[in-house]
């Protein structure tokens, strides 16, 4: 069970860092509320609930992107990757722990974003909440892997949106359409792929 213990320790480290520094989550919360306010003015009057739902999904994707860009900043600034890679644990545990931490941030941001959306625009049903929860898993899985890639490059913050947004298109399709089975399929495929390939990404940073 040392794998679970490793993941737990690493995820706890990320959550503890956030709890002390309070860098990522407050900015995600502010961003998502500001984005929803922008969308209110961007939507023409009487645009309807379907259009608003689409904007909710773009707000969520961009908020996630904001969190993901920050995900590996501590590792980069403190050159902690070397230590992590040297640590006697499976490298996929690093990915899993980071993905869980990102998932926690996303969930926390959405606890604010969804009620804010319901208050600003229209009520949301259980199906949308389920779709958001499923989408979070895929976003965290793919985003964490690509975040680790982007942080190794020179362009860094610039690179992640380019890598991540094309991957997010299927998530938006599944989310807006409410195709829960499709989101489950997406999560299953990309969680396995990211879990299996992460060790190559951090192998020689």
């Amino acid at each position, binding site marked *: 069970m040392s794998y679970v213990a490793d993941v737990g320790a690493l995820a706890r480290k990320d959550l503890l860092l956030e709890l002390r520094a309070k860098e990522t989550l407050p900015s995600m919360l502010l961003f998502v509320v500001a984005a929803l306010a922008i969308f209110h003015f961007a939507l023409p009057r009487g645009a309807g609930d379907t259009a608003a739902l689409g904007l909710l999904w773009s707000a969520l994707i961009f908020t996630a992107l904001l969190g993901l860009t920050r995900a590996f900043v501590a590792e980069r600034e403190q050159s902690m990757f070397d230590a992590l890679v040297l640590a006697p644990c499976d490298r996929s545990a690093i990915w899993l722990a980071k993905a869980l931490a990102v998932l926690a941030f996303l969930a926390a941001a959405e606890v604010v974003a969804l009620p804010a959306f319901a208050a600003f625009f229209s009520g949301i049903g259980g199906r949308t909440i389920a779709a958001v929860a499923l989408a979070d898993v895929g976003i965290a899985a793919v985003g964490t892997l690509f975040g680790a890639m982007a942080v190794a490059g020179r362009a860094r913050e610039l690179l992640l949106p380019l890598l991540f947004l*094309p991957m997010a298109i299927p998530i938006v399709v599944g989310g807006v359409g409410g195709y829960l089975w499709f989101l489950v399929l997406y999560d299953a495929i*990309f969680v396995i792929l990211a879990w299996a390939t992460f060790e190559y990404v951090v*192998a020689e940073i």
Partner: protein
Amino acid sequence: MTPRLKLPVLAACSTGLLGLALALVFFYAPTDADQGFSQRIFYFHVPIALTSYACFGWGAWKALRYLRTRDERADTESYVAIHQGVMFGALTLVTGSIWAKASWGVWWSWSENQLVLFLVLFLFYCAYFMLRFSVEPGSARANMSAVYALFGVVLIPVSFLAIRLSQKFIHPVVFNSHGPQMAGSQFLTFCVALAAVLALFATLYQVELAGKRIDAHLRELRELLT
């Protein structure tokens, strides 16, 4: 066959096949009753699109080979295949747009699945180059490129499904479960055009690969000298 001979033979084959395909498209294939002359772009649009998929698939296969064997040549081959794939992908977008303009009167149609899928793939694989050129050359870069290429080849069916879900399906379906829905002469022309574009890909792939190999060789020599 020796490498020196391979490239000229490939180039001659693709020139011959392309010439034959052009002749068949313009003089042999019947004019479509519904769309008229403009339908003939089909014989290039679809083979180019299929070749582009083949490039991405080949690139992912080489990426997998790289991750298993750590052979630097596989990394270069993967990169070159994806580079060619992006070029054929851009051509698909252009020919698809022209066809859409000719038959539906618009340059871009969000309800045309293939076009939208190619847009997604084009964006995804353009980012491949951004990733590759922002990381220092070496095994870290090769690893990341390989992982990204694998994600791309998985993204193709997932995006295809997503786009099918997201819109009504008005794109003409030429291939379905009952086989190709076209006359024998059309099918022959299509097959020759497909072979021609695939041969073109093989030639360009070898040309670019030869260039990359010479580049690497030259760099080694320069390092030896200094």
